[in-house]
């Protein structure tokens, strides 16, 4: 981390309440160009609520989400994506009846702008399929390119999530628990894929798997009961007493 890095995402004073409960409680968060920023927190800390606001799926009650200099708070989800903010979903969300290649080709097509072309055959359009295939290679699932998404393993579908997010050529990648439900072997593979991306991509990573977080993240923010209680590098977070008591548990020295 050096101070010359630009802030790509600047969240200030973001609030979201469900009834009387603050799911997002005056959160301030900034993501710097080129970093892998991990967002961690115990179950129910409001991580998914936060990322949903950062991708336009939920509207915040108040606060700002400045992305590349523009305040995006309150805009619809597709505007976030068009602005260059792609997300993957914690619960796998792909086009199950399409093949992996078609899934990513659709993402490539979405990124190419409008799709008001009614006559030309897009299913054999190499300007869509070739980049799509490359993203499948990047995420290690090219071998299953022609299998329907419903028929591949959970791990491969998680990789597909990442491939689709990448295909929109985002300037910020929001990954919502990419390792969710994976075995150790699959997680290891995913960490490797994400390590290859770090450096070329700015990533905001929400993850439970501490091995993954410590292996990947440049900076870590900790969310507890909707509040951001700390941001810092790995050592700072591990040494932070608030984090220890709130998240890692009193007796943990991990």
């Amino acid at each position, binding site marked *: 981390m050096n101070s010359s890095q630009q802030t790509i995402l600047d969240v200030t004073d973001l609030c979201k309440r469900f009834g009387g409960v603050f799911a997002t409680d005056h959160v301030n968060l900034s993501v710097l160009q080129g970093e892998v920023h991990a967002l961690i927190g115990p179950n129910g800390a409001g991580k998914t609520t936060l990322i949903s606001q950062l991708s336009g799926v939920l509207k915040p009650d108040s606060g700002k989400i400045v992305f590349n200099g523009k305040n995006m708070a309150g805009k619809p989800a*597709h505007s976030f994506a068009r602005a260059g903010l792609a997300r993957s979903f914690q619960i796998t969300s792909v086009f*199950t*009846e399409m093949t992996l290649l078609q899934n990513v080709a659709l993402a490539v097509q979405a990124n190419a702008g409008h*799709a008001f072309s009614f006559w030309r055959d*897009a299913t054999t359009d190499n300007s869509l399929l070739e980049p799509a295939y490359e993203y499948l290679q990047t995420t290690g699932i090219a071998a299953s390119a022609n299998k329907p998404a419903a028929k591949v393993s959970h791990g491969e579908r998680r990789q597909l999530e990442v491939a689709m997010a990448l295909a929109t050529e985002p300037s910020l990648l929001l990954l919502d628990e990419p390792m969710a439900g994976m075995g150790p072997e699959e997680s290891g593979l995913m960490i490797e894929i994400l390590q290859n991306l770090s450096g070329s991509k700015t990533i905001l990573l929400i993850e439970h798997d501490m091995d993954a977080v410590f292996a990947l993240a440049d900076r870590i923010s900790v969310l507890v009961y909707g509040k951001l209680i700390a941001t810092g590098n790995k050592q700072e977070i591990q040494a932070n007493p608030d984090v220890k008591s709130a998240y890692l548990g009193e007796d943990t020295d991990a």
Partner: protein
Amino acid sequence: MTNLPLKKNISRHPAFWINTIALVLLAVVPPVLFISGQPFWLDVFTRLVILALAATALNLILGFGGLVSFGHAAYLGLGAYAVGIPVYHSLYGGMDSIASFNGFLHIGLAVGISALFALLTGAISLRTRGVNFIMITMAFGQMIFYAIVALENYGGDDGLTIDVRSEFPLISLDNPLTLYTVCYLSLLLVLLIVYRITRSRFGLTLQGARSNEQRMRSLGINCYRYQLIAFVISGAICGYAGFLLGNFTTFISPEMMDWTRSGELMFMVILGGAAFLLGPVFGAAVFILLEQLLREVTIHWHLPFGILLILSVLFFNGGLAGAVSRLRSFKNQ
């Protein structure tokens, strides 16, 4: 990059041949029956082809778009009245601006008014999903139904007889064989249009929205616009089917746009196989032919008809076309 995994040649799938044979049979059998002295069957097939065309239009939004529109008979009605009303005024005066026998004007009116109605009602309906979408499209359909009932000038409830068919240069729709040919070629054209649309970027976006709307949005797609355009295209084509239906029956009434008619169109799509190009054609064929055959056996034909339809939906997952598309995997087992 050349190592893209390529799809197998489509013409080797049995579905391709079954579809081709079905379309060839539709081209050959009805004219042969007519020439060999069975004009009644040509009528049955003309109706079949027109409804297949309407169901194909519905399939674009229902099958490929995943949006269950329960008001599509309204477009059939609008299209038919776009023939009936100009012809009525040509014969009995009034409304000089639209009074005409000109078929091209009729088509223009049928398609234009249907597209406009689809745009207005779609813009509202598409803000809802699921059951609400079904109910609101049905409500808009019924709105047109009652609007026509209220038009006493044009017969209201009792309907309107089209005394003169749409006129075109060189051909006469009064000749049943010509009318059938026009309907059949129209069906082929619409199938081609829907085929191209479903494989285009637009069509893939539409199918993506059917599969997973949230995901489409997170890819940066505003699904609403695409669905609305698909809805308008579907309505416009259905309006054209109405133009054909008016010229075929030469008697039109609000009954043809009743919600039960919308239900029949929906049924043809689902029975034949939603999201399969020729599904609605199979659906319409089975629906019309079965209705005809059972009618000859018993006046209580609705009962066995209903039972057969229920069974077919239960046992043909993905409709008839879905069953055909699984032929290969069946053969390999």
